[in-house]
């Protein structure tokens, strides 16, 4: 039935979720030994669903699965792990308060009997081999996202898996970290592992994979040798039409100062000083980009601007008003809008689309002080959903049931449609496919052209270079460089972000 080299073979997979969503409509998929296989598709194409089925987390409505030539019918991830299949999710499954070592032990001990010391020794050996220095005794919550991902990968490898599924692993990584990850993936492949890489970034699929399978709206479009197919063809097959791959802004007309940050100091949750005297200005009618390796204070910086984190020292002026001590909602009334990096902050996942669509602007939908106008809210939600192409079945869907990309569209759409005077956007296009990401970028440019001020923090350097009117580089809590995007090459940016050269700015 299935030949030996098909490490994974899935046939005619259909998945209908309990609420009636047809996520997969009969998909075949196969992966062989020693390959990196990219699973490419737009938001909501069914990539995550297909792999959750392989991983035994959810069961297919129809279809057969063979692993190493044997029929598999996993009832839980634990069974999949025992058969050598591991998956690293978009949202990590680590326990924040436990240390790295404890998390790894917990995961392994659920698969087989093993002592903590043995786990520790093997984890240390493996991370040495991969060239990673891991802080085994630090709690997960104190680590940047890039390191958390490594913990997940270690977990998977130590469980002895032969097949490693990664769900959009690069969406949370900086370019340098992406390089690192790809290097590791390639060396694992060379040792014979099968790696399935879920992504909607065509360029990534092209760069790292040996073969690529494209999904579109729950159907398989085809499987190709990566070397034999061009980026434009991949894009066309994925979207079903030609798309432009970049966005370019018009000429900015900067006006008065919208947002001023002066000598700001901010601590993180652990009490470590993360922002050390950051100073920056954003004018109306311009986009200021911030580039930096994750964990250099950008998160704390934008959270302090948004009013979610106290400033230890320094000042924040919003539209000329000293907002350093104002609450988040007061800052909102001054015209500030914030798109957070995490959907757990920007969305109430248990609540429905209508309820989420008014989360940051409740007062606009309130009558007589306390009475929420749900009719008006529903109209607003409908507008966001139509405008930003959020794929859902009804406005009463809980946000939890949307795919990652559609959650992102809802969150970003809500803030952009407010037409804020000042927008602070942290990774606004993360998890979005090319077409949607470009749409969001165009909307931000429109907003700027209408006179709004935008502060954009992104790990996508090309996005920063194409959107920013001015570009700042943050390193170790300080703005170390400022210039026009034309002044930077990717190399120079990389060096600045790595703290290798200092433009001795400020």
């Amino acid at each position, binding site marked *: 039935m299935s030949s030996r080299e098909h490490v994974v073979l899935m046939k005619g997979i259909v998945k209908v979720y309990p609420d009636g969503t047809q996520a997969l409509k009969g998909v075949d998929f196969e992966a062989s030994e020693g390959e990196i296989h990219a699973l490419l598709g737009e938001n909501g194409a069914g990539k995550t669903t297909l792999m959750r089925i392989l991983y035994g987390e959810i069961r297919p409505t129809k279809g057969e699965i063979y692993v190493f030539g044997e029929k598999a019918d996993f009832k839980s991830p634990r069974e999949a792990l025992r058969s050598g299949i591991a998956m690293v*999710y978009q949202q990590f499954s680590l326990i924040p308060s436990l240390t790295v070592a404890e998390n790894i032990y917990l995961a392994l001990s659920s698969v087989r009997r093993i002592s903590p010391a043995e786990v520790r020794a093997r984890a240390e050996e493996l991370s040495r081999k991969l060239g990673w220095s891991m802080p085994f005794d630090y709690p997960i919550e104190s680590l940047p996202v890039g390191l958390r991902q490594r913990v997940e990968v270690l977990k998977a490898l130590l469980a002895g898996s032969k097949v490693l599924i990664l769900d959009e692993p690069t969406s949370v990584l900086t370019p340098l970290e992406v390089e690192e990850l790809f290097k590791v993936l390639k060396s694992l492949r060379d040792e014979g592992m099968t790696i399935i890489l879920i992504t909607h970034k065509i360029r990534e699929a092209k760069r790292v994979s040996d073969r690529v399978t494209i999904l579109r709206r729950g159907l398989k479009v085809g499987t190709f040798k990566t070397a034999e197919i061009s980026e434009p063809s991949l894009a066309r097959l994925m979207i079903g039409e030609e798309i432009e791959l970049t966005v370019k802004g018009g000429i900015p007309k900067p006006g008065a100062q919208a947002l001023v940050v002066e000598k700001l100091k901010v601590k993180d949750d652990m009490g470590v000083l993360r922002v050390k005297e950051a100073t920056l200005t954003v004018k109306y009618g311009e986009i200021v980009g911030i580039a930096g390796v994750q964990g250099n204070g950008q998160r704390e910086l934008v959270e302090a601007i948004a009013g979610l984190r106290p400033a230890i020292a320094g000042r924040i002026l919003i539209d000329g008003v000293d907002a350093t001590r104002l609450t988040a909602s007061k800052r909102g009334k001054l015209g500030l809008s914030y798109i957070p990096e*995490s959907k*757990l902050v920007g969305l109430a996942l248990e609540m429905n689309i209508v309820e989420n669509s008014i989360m940051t602007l409740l007062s606009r939908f309130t009558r007589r002080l306390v009475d929420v106008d*749900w009719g008006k809210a529903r109209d607003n939600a409908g507008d966001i959903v139509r405008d930003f192409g959020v794929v859902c079945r*009804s406005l*009463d869907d809980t946000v939890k049931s949307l795919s990652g990309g559609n959650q992102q569209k809802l969150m970003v759409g809500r803030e952009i449609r407010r037409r804020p005077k000042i927008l602070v956007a942290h990774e606004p296009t993360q998890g979005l496919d090319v077409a949607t990401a470009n749409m969001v970028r165009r909307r931000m440019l429109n907003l700027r052209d209408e006179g709004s001020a935008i502060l954009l923090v992104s790990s996508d350097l090309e996005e920063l270079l194409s959107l920013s009117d001015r570009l700042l580089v943050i390193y170790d809590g300080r703005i170390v460089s400022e210039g026009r995007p034309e002044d930077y090459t990717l190399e120079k940016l990389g060096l600045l972000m790595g703290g290798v050269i200092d433009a001795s700015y400020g």
Partner: protein
Amino acid sequence: MMLAMGESGLRKVYPVLESLAALIAGIIGGFIVSAVLGYDPFASISLILLSGFGNIEYLLSISVPLTLSALAFIVPLRAGLFNIGVEGQAYVGALAAVYVSSLTGFPLPIILAPLAGALIGFLIGVLRVYRGVNEVVSSIMLNWTLFYTVSFTISRYLRDPVIVHQSVRVDRMLSALEALLIALAITIAVHTILYRTTLGYYIRVMGSSPEALKYSGSSESRVTLTAMSLGGVLGGLAGALQVYTVSGFIDVTMSAVFGIGFMGIAAGLIGRATAVGALPASILISALIIGGHKLELVLGAPPELADVMIGVMMLALSAPYALRLLSSKVLG
């Protein structure tokens, strides 16, 4: 479009189906236990149900305070807070009702008792917000503190001149119909607060994610304090209604009110943490309790048989949730 409507309809009835399945599971549980204990399962279960639902007026008057207790548990729960303090709030509410009734007549006692409960809820909230004390821990300690305080106050200041171990009686009793109307009005009020007001909105956002609450422009401390106080209002009212519809007085062992807070947790969970589910769930539980006592009288079977049925129902309802949580968090 038709399809979509059908599906959203299905999603609405799904929780009801789950509750019905739990009900059946509970009955089966009772069946098995009574058979194991050597009693005729058909006879015991039908006796429980028949006598439980036999006297509707009595059933309703017992269900109404329990409904309030369930609501008192539910409101903070929707913000992710566990109001284990309903029990103590009910003691205080009952005491306040008796005390105010000894000064003035109905309806003032019922109006003031909730304020006493609110004070307790607020205190638990303050301890959590400003001192970082987990609300479950402070509630459990407060429940016992209040138990003895209320018991002491009765025997010292409000004791009945003739029957010394109990308090004076309240000025009048509420009929089952009056109680039912109060319960319905409060249910509607709680439902409205949760789903139509900004406060309810923020309570639910906090229940979904405290970080999202902060992002949305509200604050965790404000919502914690209001949700716990609101829970206290309802808990106090539960105690007052228990006196006004069921017992007429409280005694030094608190037997009239004891346990109402804990039963409220069961009722709140069986009602799926919804305001509209509280009353039906409370009626069901009350019927089982009444039936359980009857069972003891008629067959000599232990009344705990009814508790087993309630327990199985709660387990059946929480099982799907617990399983999901386990499979998604621990493994993987």
